[in-house]
């Protein structure tokens, strides 16, 4: 059979291959940041290998079946006005059996490694050293990261050591999200009200891109993150640095920015979790919000949304990206973000929640100063730590709780910020009075003050924390 002659009538119709060709040429570049090829971890490697295996089987089937189809079309097309009827075949049972059994065999070939890998990838190998536990809490539309046992809380950038298995145990506080670092492992959904675990290991150092893969609302496209895999030593250095105090603020902009931050931003964003008690408080505070969120059924829907914990900003300047892995962290980008967060990431709730946006009082100067302050949030260099963490006393812990939760409104002197200054509070009443004022702020309000204190501290703080807070307050 002369193939050229065979194809001639169809030649013009294969023109469609010309526009299709570029599509075939834009094949995967495995260097691309989120490519599922060129992977760097055992989990993703295996998944990619299995895909390649299935891919080549599929290619073989594709060539055979499409080939048969095209051959049949070309060979048996009607020529001219040939009106005679072809042989009337009705079927062939042998053929039916053959083309039932062959696919079954192919699928068994795929199913066997599939099932094996499903079980292999459930959890992590126990013979490869200790596993690093990392807690991930997904929020609309950012990631809260915690290293349990290390008293380190951060956001959107996860540091992990190279060569060590890491187990992410993940929760969601709002809707379903999905945790996905293509270069390291396939994704795992995070369902509210339940825990999901995903173990992975990075074989080489790198800055791996991750992204929420389950549609989660308005800014879903911008719920990204990074995993930074470092050599174990560098990772330990980083962990240690996260527990060191920040450097002295240098510029006047930064010092002014700190004040703006304390009054306007500190209610939601913490910058002081380098202190172990503060880090624990941060967890408690977020857990309290979560518990209120999940369990308080009387909460109005608007309030429930507003129970948002915001990303932790401790040692913010050490990060490389901004807005959940969205843009590089530079002065310019940061100012743009602070000035109008919605322009960078529609849907985020900062403008609804923070007073300066609501009141329209945020000036360009404020923005510059805030950015300057945030960009100076760095830990002091190792060994230069001037403050050695003092003894972990109830007083110290109470102070930290106060700094993290109360200092936005209350000074420790006599002046009034939003709430009354608290110097000498122990003279104003018994311990029971202080306790009740915390747990139920409306109980004893001085006539001139309207009570603006959130009423949920009773559920937000643990009993121990309130005890510690009282110890601290009585010392004032």
């Amino acid at each position, binding site marked *: 059979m002369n193939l050229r002659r065979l194809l001639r009538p169809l030649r013009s119709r294969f023109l469609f291959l010309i526009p299709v060709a570029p*599509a075939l040429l834009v094949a995967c570049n495995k260097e691309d940041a989120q490519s599922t090829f060129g992977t760097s971890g055992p989990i993703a490697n295996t998944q990619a290998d299995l895909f390649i295996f299935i891919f080549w089987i599929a290619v073989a089937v594709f060539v055979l079946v499409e080939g048969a189809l095209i051959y049949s079309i070309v060979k048996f097309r009607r020529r001219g006005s040939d009106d005679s009827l*072809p042989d009337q075949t009705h079927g062939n049972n042998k053929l039916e059996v053959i083309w039932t059994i062959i696919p079954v065999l192919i699928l068994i070939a795929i199913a066997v490694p599939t099932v094996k890998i499903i079980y292999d990838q459930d959890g992590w190998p126990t013979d490869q050293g200790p596993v690093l536990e990392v807690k991930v809490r997904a929020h609309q539309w950012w990631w809260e990261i915690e290293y349990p046992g290390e008293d380190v809380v951060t956001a959107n950038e996860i540091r992990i050591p190279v060569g060590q298995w890491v187990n992410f145990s993940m929760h969601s506080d709002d809707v379903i999200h999905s945790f996905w670092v*293509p270069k390291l492992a396939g994704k795992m959904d995070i369902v509210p009200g339940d825990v999901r675990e995903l173990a992975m290991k990075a074989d080489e150092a790198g800055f791996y891109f991750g992204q929420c893969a389950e549609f989660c609302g308005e800014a879903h496209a911008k719920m990204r993150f990074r995993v930074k895999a470092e050599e174990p030593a560098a990772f330990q250095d980083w962990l240690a640095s996260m527990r060191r105090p920040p450097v002295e603020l240098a510029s006047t902009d930064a010092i002014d920015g700190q004040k703006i931050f304390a009054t306007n931003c500190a209610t939601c964003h913490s910058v002081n979790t380098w202190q172990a008690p503060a880090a624990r408080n941060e967890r408690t505070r977020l857990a309290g919000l979560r518990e209120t969120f999940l369990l308080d059924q009387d909460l109005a829907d608007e309030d429930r949304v507003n129970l948002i914990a915001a990303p932790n900003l401790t040692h913010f300047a050490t990060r490389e990206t901004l807005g959940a892995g969205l843009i590089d962290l530079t002065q310019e980008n940061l100012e743009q973000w602070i000035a109008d967060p919605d322009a960078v990431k529609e849907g985020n709730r900062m403008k609804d929640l923070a007073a300066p946006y609501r009141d329209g009082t945020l000036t360009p100067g404020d923005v510059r100063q805030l950015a300057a302050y945030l960009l100076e949030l760095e830990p002091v260099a190792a060994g230069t730590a001037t403050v050695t963490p003092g003894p972990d006393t109830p007083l110290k812990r109470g102070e930290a709780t106060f700094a993290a939760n109360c200092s936005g409104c209350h000074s420790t002197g006599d002046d009034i910020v939003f709430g009354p200054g608290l110097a000498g509070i122990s003279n104003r009443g018994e311990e029971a009075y202080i306790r009740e004022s915390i747990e139920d702020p409306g109980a004893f309000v001085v006539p001139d003050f309207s009570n603006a204190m959130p009423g949920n501290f009773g559920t937000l703080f643990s009993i121990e924390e309130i005890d510690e807070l009282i110890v601290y307050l009585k010392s004032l």
Partner: protein
Amino acid sequence: MTTIAFPTLISRPTSYTGLWSWIGTVDHKRIGTLYGVTAFLYFLVGGVEALILRAQLAQAESDLISPELFNELFTMHGTTMVFLVVMPMSAAFFNWMIPLMIGARDVAFPRLNAFSYWTFLFGSIFLNLSFFLGGAPDAGWFGYANLTGNTYSPGDGVTFWALGLTTLGVASLAAAFNFVVTILNMRAPGMGLMKMPVFVWMSLVTSILIALAMPIIAVALIQLALDRVWDTNFFNPAAGGDPVLWQHLFWLFGHPEVYILILPAMGIVSETLPVFSKKPLFGYPAVVLAGAIIGFMGWFVWSHHMFTVGLGPAANAAFAVSTMLIAVPTGVKIFNWIATTWGGKLQLNTSMLFSLGFIAMFIIGGLSGVSHASPPTDAQQQDTYYIVAHFHYVLFGGAIFGLFAGGYYWWPKMTGKKLGEALGQWHFWVMLVGFNLTFGPMHWLGLNGMPRRIATYADGMGWEMSNAIASAGSMLIAFGVLLFIINIIRTISSTQESEDDPWDARTLEWSIPSPPPAYNFARIPQVKSLDDFWYTKHPDLLHDERGEEIEVGEPVENDTHGGGSIHLPGMSYYPFITSLGVTIGVAGFMDILVEVPGTNIQFPWLSAVGIVIGLWGLMGWTFEPVSEEGGH
């Protein structure tokens, strides 16, 4: 039977032309036309939505539309294409062709049939009204809880979605019951189940799937609507509710739904391929059996949509295996189709090209499907553009191509004129190229890590080129659809009539004039074998390859209905009224409840209005005689 006059309040329609004749029609052919026209209009709506989405994604960091609008558009694109295009377009062919193919004068319940259409129309209008009444649904066509709860979807969009789809579910259920009964009960004498055309078989399987799957999504949607309207706790994690339950209920419906979408198209190409190959369908029993097995196994694979939810290795492994197994009957169908063309005399007209395009594209979609039947690889592919590519190859390259094949094939049957062949060929090739340009690169995009449903993406991810090609391809598809519309207009305005049986076809619908008379068959045919009509035309082929003689039936001499005259059911407005009542009744659960004084009961007053209208319609329906006395 004694008939007692009932004050029906409105007189029944009598005219067979004009608007009122369409509203009152109970003729399956007219209702099929209504379904087809409506579905095609929604095809254009869904297509425009898709074009806007592609325009937004054509380049990185694009801000052509807001993320909010993007979310609304992709939600409505999916919902529209599934519920308002492919399903009703299949229903159009069911309506038109099932009675004709089985030799019946109408469906079993003509008025119920009209009710199905009107409920579908009103429900779809209600759903799309959301664009103008406070925002369209924006939580995805899959509506995963708890993003659909009041907390995270405060507007009315999701309520519109839940109630609209509930209404559409009522329409689909009524239609499915009707078709099951029609196919089982109304076949021409002698047409045993294994002598039915494959299209009718696939319609039967589809209808059974709808009848059994729709109640599940109806329950899920009712639960969602109650969560939103009456603050129940079905999917509320704050009360211990589990959003994963929604996913189970949704995909328990959703996977049979996939077969509801594709089986009619499979039935269509099983008709066109033998006709245009001039050969009987290869392995008819195997094709039928494979379709039935797909319909059954489709019930036990739903969790493959949830491989990354974390159901545990045992569930994932079990569902992986069951999912892979379902590829076997699908493969059997494809092999039988290819074998049908093998050794034939293929007439490569537009309908045949679309049928062959269906097979070619469906193979690609099926093979990419195997790669995410495996949970470890699916973990990388789930929720990426790879999945988007896969299901468009199956549902666009598959279902839509199959429906186009059916459109070109049956157009002369329905209108008496052939669609233009030259434009048709252009239509096919533009469509095929555009389709592959649009969805081919999405395979790369997905494997390159681009998630679905993202309103925008960053520069430098390596996604720019593929997205640009995909967007360009979508324009080409739009151009192809434009060619189709031009073709329709030219055909309608032309005066060239087609023959009654222009394709030398095999099935009963071609044995009567085109377009068919209102009563379809002047004489009810008598069927002795599969493709009976073909053997009447080709008596020389009465010996099959095994040398057995295939019997051909003679039409039944006398009409079954008394007196020798043909009796057709009368037209009726009541299905229309009942549909209106049902839709208003469901829509009444929108945010317009009033508190009953002295209680804390929220009363949906508009629903009460709807129920009253619906009851009026039902009463009229019940007491209106099927036809006027003395009408024959």
